[in-house]
């Protein structure tokens, strides 16, 4: 049971970030590596704010905004300075490593014993003890569902239409008298906002910020998105956002399974990349053709 809850918890946290990767990878077709920097950035911002006594719920919003700002920088570098998409992400990711250290002051900041969205007075007073083991999962589920609904709603707005159009056919966006560059920047801002939000939640759940926690975020996000969309392709009615969330949990389950089968925690990144490779190869075989980039 603990394992199942663990899988759900981590899967749900990464699902928030995967919603962002879904925007960049699936909608904008932009391999955005800056999430490797914005994920820990969200955590760094959160750790600092919580130590200063800021309400944990407020940190969710501020972390999102921080990530969105970083996403704007990636977009600006790509759109206005005409740097290739992959490189723009790498530049921002690299810069964020130092910026995150600046924000946090050191490479490891514990926030144990502080109030978080998972452990606070209100919860202790209002939640019956029998529910205790499930509190974290339930709160995460609520956050993920809210994020998903907001994103789905956004996609149905005029601005959301334009975002979908820019990935589909950016010539049309120009024909609609809109600056396609601006639309891409907005998309990257939202995506990195989600990544930072995931970092914020991760930090509050684990109780610390750690500088290297973002390494491989993008790979995990991509794996989640691809697993989810491939797995649920058959059910046409399932929304892509739902698929991404399911994919995140399935992916986490696979990793846990590998660890349960005797791999050590130090093999985590190896498992991640082998699993990711497996998914890519598998989905290429399903498509019957190789994608030229990932």
């Amino acid at each position, binding site marked *: 049971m603990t394992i199942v809850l663990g899988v759900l918890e981590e899967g749900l946290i990464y699902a928030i970030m995967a919603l962002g990767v879904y925007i960049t990878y699936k909608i904008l077709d932009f391999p955005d590596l800056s999430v490797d920097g914005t994920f820990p950035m969200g955590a760094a911002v959160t750790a600092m704010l919580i130590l200063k006594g800021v309400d944990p719920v407020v940190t969710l919003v501020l972390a999102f905004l921080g990530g969105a700002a970083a996403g704007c920088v990636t977009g600006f570098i790509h759109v206005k300075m005409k740097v290739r998409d992959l490189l723009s992400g790498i530049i921002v990711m690299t810069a964020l490593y130092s910026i995150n250290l600046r924000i946090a002051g050191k490479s490891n900041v514990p926030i144990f014993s502080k109030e978080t969205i998972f452990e606070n007075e209100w919860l202790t007073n209002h939640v019956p003890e029998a529910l205790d083991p499930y509190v974290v999962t339930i709160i995460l589920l609520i956050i993920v569902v809210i994020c998903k609904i907001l994103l789905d709603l956004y996609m*149905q707005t005029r*601005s*959301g*239409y334009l975002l979908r159009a820019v990935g589909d056919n950016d010539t049309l966006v120009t024909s609609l008298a809109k600056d396609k560059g601006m639309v891409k920047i907005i998309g990257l801002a939202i995506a990195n906002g989600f990544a930072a939000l995931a970092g914020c939640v991760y930090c509050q759940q684990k109780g610390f910020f750690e500088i290297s926690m973002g390494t491989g975020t993008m790979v995990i996000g991509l794996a989640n998105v691809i697993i989810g969309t491939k797995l649920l392709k058959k059910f046409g009615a399932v929304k892509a956002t739902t698929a991404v969330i399911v994919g995140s949990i399935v992916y986490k389950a696979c990793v846990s399974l590998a660890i349960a089968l005797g791999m050590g925690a130090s093999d985590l990144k190896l498992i991640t990349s082998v699993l990711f490779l497996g998914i890519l190869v598998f989905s290429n075989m399903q498509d019957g053709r190789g994608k030229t980039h990932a």
Partner: protein
Amino acid sequence: MLELNHIGKYYNAGTVNEMCLFDDFSLTIQDGEFVSVVGSNGSGKTSMLNIICGSIPLDAGSIKIGGKDITRMPEYQRQRRIGRVYQNPAMGTCPSMTILENMALADNKGKPFNLLPGTNRQRIDFYREQLHFLGLGLEDKLEVKVGVLSGGQRQAMALLMSTMTPIEFLILDEHTAALDPKTADIIMELTDKVVREKHLTTIMVTHNLRFAVEYGNRLLMMHQGNAIIDKCGAEKAEIKIESILDKFNEISIECGN
């Protein structure tokens, strides 16, 4: 009125491969004109459209619309007054969005793309009516993704979408070239209907000499960055395909083809 004044455009300037496309090219198009543009490959037809729309920068000269200089205006801003249909039917629509969503996108041109609902439910009947005008039965397939439509259907939608909001100019860039002859005829008739109904100033580049002769009230033949035929009004009405074809052969021989 659209004015191209002393346009200069060179490719690979300053290298041995320097190619002069336009040198001091001027053209004025009056409001309400429907200009058909023909010419061999590389004669500057599509480049002229790209220059008008701002897709490629100018090396010399200026462009004015209604007396206002738009030479430095970015492409997307010019598009507010211009509707453009491309040769490739995929360029004018979003394949992964539904017909309804595509119509709504086009309908919102010129309005702010904010957080209001993307599709205004009250406009659906209007979209149906517009699609009905195409006569392709698309009005009953509003929830179908545009990606599954045929090239002809998509081009018809692209035409509809580019002319849905009030525009001053319609730019047609070989918009029937990728279609089979029958569909091309249908699209061309539709184009004529739309242009008449909305009184659009139109520039149509085409390789189809019959379309160039049958439609529009002015005909241009481009050759090496110049208009070697420019007929309008009654003169245009008298032009026969044969005479254009003769001229074509003449310039081809000149070029050694």
